[in-house]
């Protein structure tokens, strides 16, 4: 076991735990701990092996390496990939330096992002939106053309909108870990790189739909749900069915009695509890197919949880000021 302290909160965790996991455990264990002590993640996904390390949003500062070697680490580290040591101390939200560096990362993620949220199916449950609200600048410093790609269809069910991709590699890891051979990966290099199946091949696998759920942004979306509704106008419920391929435990997104969309059940970190099969996800759109358990509690990563709109202050908008500006304009 190793004892770690993050932002002043201490917890004992098994050896081999990462700083990020330890922070999540802290938040899970103690309701008094601010959920933000767990760093935001855009590429790490606890259910996917070797995920994490790419996006750099989860950075923290290690102020004390361990009991044995108390030296601080010279540079911020990716908490999702750094294992704890006994006696380690780190800072996340209590460090202005970390917040500043994270702001930088968020800016990098946004400079080439199209910001087409108004027409994006992911809007409302997009991790990049969340991150932007919490750490973004209100005005971009980037005044060059943004990179664009053509949209492609990966098979009948999945839309790939590469322009929105933030290169988190989660979908690549899903494809790698659910299929026996490589069907989906990265082409080209640097800021010209793109995620692709190369020749627009469908990922021919019963679990391919999960790449939609793991995508933190609207780069991979469900074609059966495309432009049907904003997510916050749909009602999520937990439901299950007898499925031979997966557990059959899903979240249905209803409008009236219509099932607009089926997804995995996401936990408070925005990760699905279990991967579901394509049959459940794409082909069972009749309420009679399902046993409905009850409303689904939406934790954090969705505006429908009203979390982000709890108060105007959290939106960081000063309505009074705006109104004043409008009235003086007239």
């Amino acid at each position, binding site marked *: 076991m190793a004892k770690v302290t993050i932002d002043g909160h201490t917890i004992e965790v098994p050896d081999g735990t990462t700083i990020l996991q330890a922070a999540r455990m802290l938040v899970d264990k103690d309701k008094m701990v601010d959920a933000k002590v767990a760093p935001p993640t855009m590429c790490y996904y606890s259910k996917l092996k070797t995920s994490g390390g790419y996006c750099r*949003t989860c950075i923290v500062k290690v102020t004390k390496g361990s009991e044995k070697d108390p030296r601080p680490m010279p540079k911020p580290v990716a908490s999702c*990939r750094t294992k704890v040591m006994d006696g380690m101390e780190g800072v996340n939200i209590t460090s202005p330096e970390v917040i500043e560096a994270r702001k*930088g990362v968020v800016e990098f993620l946004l400079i080439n992002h199209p910001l087409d949220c108004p027409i994006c199916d992911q809007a409302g449950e997009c991790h990049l939106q969340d991150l932007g609200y919490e750490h973004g600048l209100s005005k971009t410093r*980037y005044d*060059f053309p943004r*990179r664009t790609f053509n949209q492609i269809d990966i098979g009948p069910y999945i839309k790939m909108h590469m322009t929105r991709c933030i290169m988190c590699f989660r979908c690549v890891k899903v494809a790698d870990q659910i299929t026996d051979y490589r069907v989906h990966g990265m082409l080209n*290099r*640097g800021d010209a790189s793109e995620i692709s199946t190369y020749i627009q091949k469908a990922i021919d696998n019963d679990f391919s739909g999960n790449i939609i759920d793991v995508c933190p942004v609207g780069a991979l979306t469900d074609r059966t749900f495309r432009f049907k509704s904003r997510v916050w106008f749909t009602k999520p419920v937990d439901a299950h069915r007898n499925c031979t391929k997966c557990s059959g435990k899903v979240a249905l997104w209803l409008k009236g009695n219509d099932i607009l969309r089926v997804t995995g059940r996401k936990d408070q970190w925005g990760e699905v509890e279990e991967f579901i099969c394509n049959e459940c996800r794409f082909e069972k759109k009749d309420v009679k197919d399902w046993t409905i358990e009850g409303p689904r509690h939406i934790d954090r990563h969705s505006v429908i949880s009203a979390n982000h709109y709890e108060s105007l202050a959290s939106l960081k908008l000063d309505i009074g000021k705006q109104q004043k500006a409008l009235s003086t304009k007239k």
Partner: protein
Amino acid sequence: MGKKLLIHNDKVPNIHTLQVYREHGGYASVEKALKSMTPNDVVEEVKKSGLRGRGGAGFPTGMKWSFLAKPEGVERYLVCNADESEPGTFKDRYLMEKIPHALIEGMITSSYALGAKTSYIYIRGEYFYVARILEKAIEEAYAAGLLGKNILGTDFSHDCYVQVGGGAYICGEETALLESLEGKRGNPRIKPPFPAIAGLYGCPTVVNNVETIAAVCPIVMMGGDEYAKIGVGRSTGTKLISASGHINKPGVYEIELGLPVEEFIYSDEYCGGIINGRKLKAVIAGGSSVPILPAELILKNDKGEPRLMTYESLSEGGFATGTMLGSGGFMVYDETTSIVKNLYTLARFYHHESCGQCSPCREGTGWMEKILHRIVEGHGKPSDIDLLWDIQRKIEGNTICPLGDAAAWPVASAIRHFRAEFEEYINNPSKIKDVKHYYSVNQLAGA
């Protein structure tokens, strides 16, 4: 005349052939190591020699070798990094092209020390003709019983292969190199684990630069203590420097570490002074990634002491007034050079070569290039200098591999030492001729 240990025979006719190479004492270190030393003896000699990695980072080679994990029944590998893609660096090419057997000899001796049955030379795609030279040399070595089963009648067997890369700079980063060698996309791995624990095919692996491996031969022959007498302090031995730019005699020079920078630039034995008698403006001392220094800071450090060609002396003063020895790519700029344009060229390079895995490097390198392009074309904004500074600061230290740092340092140092020149570009756009300001989106997307 300084001592030469690596390329002293470079002018001997046909030194690239095994016969001539052996006539000049070649492969003696293989004989000596395999027949009269244990592998551990060789490692000890390398440790005593104080040899530091010649690929750029300067990590002590003996220490790296002693970190190599040695689990029972698991293969170990030696991989030679011949990717040499750092702008300004062309010393490994010279060595391999002129005296290929010097590298092969080093590969065998080093592999013996590490207990590696197989080794690979990963060479950059553009060096395809050098790969052929190496393959020829390996063929000769096999025929002479220096490679293959029971080398020179001993128990040691070894195979060495040349693998040509696809020509990406990032494949010089050791873990990207290993990925590429395994046939995958050359993306740097997230460390730990380090190659010494899990490298090629998940097996313990040592990755060393061409020059580092070649230097093992003289160390075995003369002994580590004797080697350590050359040089100054913790910078021991000799180093190949590839000198280019506005000098009278560009080329590859072998120097004893500790040579004063001023002597290196102005002495006829080396660079022979600045071309056309012009004045020195700046130097990038160790390949494009290291900070550029203005003339007054490269010749003398901030305390006014002469700078020496050593790891320590060049980095004296930290990044505020110092730089690094790096890979030994010594680029000299005279008074006619535009630092801004030069920086733009470098920024283009790093943008082009970023692998795209981590957000700060993938997005930041492109952004910096575009801003510099705008400045060079006469459309810079006064806020651009601070913006560039802020971007490089947010890339540095927050990436998976050091390419992010390598992209940030040139920008930081150019602004630190030549800020006025940037201001001039921005304030007097009319002076900058041939303005074409465009950047097509297709170009960006690589379409």
